[in-house]
């Protein structure tokens, strides 16, 4: 009792370097990804065709972009379930504006602005009013989707011919949405991993009170993340509108599952403070492989839904298990 420095925690053996590098959730994601490609290639030769995989990825690139930002929000200890509804509403506002004669560039700006405003509203409720983000974003999820339904009704709003087909635009043989996703991953990965801002996000998620005492402007950073989330959802919404060629209120319906799943599969810790952009990046590809595999194997959409639901639960159990064993 006299020697207080030698606590059991400090007395524990130092983990070898290979242990630190290899035993982490991202490794699990990577192994599963390789496994997925291998199994996929046994089902269908298409899986070894890079062009086919890239083409499939365009269907998930929008969700993937949002999932990258969602990863940062979850690391900061919050959650946002509203981005899919935000996508629908900002796309509906954009489509509604341009259908009523607003010039296209302005309509795009209005759509993006609407997304930012929705993010600001989430941030206001969560940060200024201190209401838990879980319940706030359940509310805004319903409200945003409902407003999109009010605006678009049961009809689909067409967008101009030249605006359609962002997924058909190729950059160096890679579809544009995939390029955007990859660039965004690199940028956000660097921001989260190397900048002071990024490290502060981890600190907030680990212990917000101590982060405040350490001089981190926790509220401001969290608000910025929610607003970034709103902006990214709007970008994703407008990209989806371009891919589909028209906007209905059910655009991206149920997308929150995919987004949360990407973040969780990538080893983001649901209670905050841990996780990487690399993990979510890998998980997005894993999800594409799994989904495409199920489509190629001719599974019913319902079965696919079940698999995604189970995958979500299994992935958080596995992630929690790995963290509980390695990073006490």
């Amino acid at each position, binding site marked *: 009792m006299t020697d207080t420095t030698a606590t059991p925690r400090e007395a524990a053996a130092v983990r070898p370097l290979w242990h630190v590098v290899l035993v982490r959730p991202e490794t699990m994601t990577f192994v599963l990804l390789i496994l997925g490609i291998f199994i996929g290639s046994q089902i269908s030769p298409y899986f070894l065709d890079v062009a086919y995989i890239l083409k499939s990825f365009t269907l998930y690139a929008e969700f993937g972009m949002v999932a990258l930002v969602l990863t940062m929000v979850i690391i900061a200890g919050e*959650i946002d*379930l509203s981005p899919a509804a935000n996508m629908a509403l900002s796309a509906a506002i954009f489509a509604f504006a341009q259908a009523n004669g607003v010039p296209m560039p302005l309509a795009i700006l209005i759509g993006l602005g609407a997304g930012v405003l929705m993010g600001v509203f989430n941030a206001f*409720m969560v940060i200024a*009013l*201190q*209401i*838990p983000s*879980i*319940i*706030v974003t*359940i*509310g*805004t*999820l*319903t*409200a*945003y*989707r*409902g*407003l999109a*339904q*009010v605006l678009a*009704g*049961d009809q689909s709003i067409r967008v101009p011919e030249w605006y359609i087909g962002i997924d058909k635009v190729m950059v160096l043989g890679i579809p544009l949405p995939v390029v955007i996703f990859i660039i965004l991953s690199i940028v956000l990965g660097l921001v989260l991993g190397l900048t002071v801002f990024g490290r502060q996000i981890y600190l907030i998620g680990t212990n917000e009170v101590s982060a405040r005492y350490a001089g981190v402007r926790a509220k401001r950073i969290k608000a910025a993340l929610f607003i970034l989330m709103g902006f990214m959802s709007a970008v994703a919404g407008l990209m989806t509108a371009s891919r589909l060629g028209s906007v209905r*209120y059910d655009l991206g319906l*149920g997308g*929150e*599952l995919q987004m*949360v799943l990407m973040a*969780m599969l990538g080893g983001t810790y*649901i*209670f905050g403070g841990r996780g990487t952009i690399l993990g979510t990046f890998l998980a997005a590809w894993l999800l594409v492989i799994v989904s495409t595999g199920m489509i190629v194997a001719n599974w*019913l*959409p*319902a*079965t*696919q*839904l*079940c*698999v*995604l*639901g*189970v995958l*979500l*639960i299994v992935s*958080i*159990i596995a992630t*929690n298990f790995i963290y509980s064993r390695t990073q006490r």
Partner: protein
Amino acid sequence: MSAVLNFLIRRREAGIFVMIVLFCLFVGVQKPQFLTLDSLRIVLLLTPLIMIGAMGQMMVIVARHVDLSIGSILGLSAMVSGMMFRYMPDMPWFLCFPLSIGTGMLLGFVNGLLITTFRLPAIIVTLGTLNLYRGLTFIISNAKQIDRQYVPSILKSMSQPSPTLAVPLIIFLSFAIAVATYWFLMHTRIGRQIFALGSNPVAAPLRGINVTQVTLLVFTLSGALSGLAGIMYASRWGFVNPSNTGAGFEFQVIAAVVIGGVSINGGVGTVLGTVLGVLLLGCVGAALPLLGIPGTTQNAIYGSVILVALLIDRLVRAQGNRGVTQRAGASS
């Protein structure tokens, strides 16, 4: 004036009651036919499903969790009974009650088990099972709807005005559930433990409350009540559809519960408040067609109701804190 406002905010039930009255008067001024017994019947017919679901969700939220999967539990347990009606018409029809409630209990128990065993947040688990259970509904039903002719007419008649009582049976049933919930929460040991757990999850185990048991119980009950709501759905609408039945149910129920004054921070909530919250939603639902507002606005309204309720909840907390600090200041 501010004293009145303060009272209405403190006594949340009184506040919601005033809101219901004001809303009815507002609609009644524009459409006098809204203030008739006939529309009261419409209001009451809209509420049983939400009422039953809200009782379960209320317990879950009081225990500081949230259950997003109730809509899918409703769908799956309704489908199980529907399958019995369709493929085993010889079975006595009332077997649907144990069947659906049992299915709901099982599904809710699975939620609770995942949450307690692996210490996972309820929101993510139920987001997963929301999709899992919906998928299972499609799989067991082979994506086919159970049509009207399969649902026993005696079950459907429960939603029709009965000759002796003039009010459909399911309305009585839903109020009976509310009374039972009141008794359970206020007069049993484990009911009080739910409140204790929600008010302070850290202190609850120190007071000898078995947190695992209580958490499992609230999710199982929430599932069982959703299962019962599944039968009510079959009774009310006369069909069970794999994709529509129960879809979006969770949002209506959460809206009713939070407007009813159940605090999202756990430990606070009354059955009376929740019942009034359900009735308010019922009034809104009945008024929309009368006012000529299209049905597409419903989701937007539920969403705004949730957000407004959260703001009120926040206001109440601010008031409560001020009261405490004032008292502290007075004593020093």
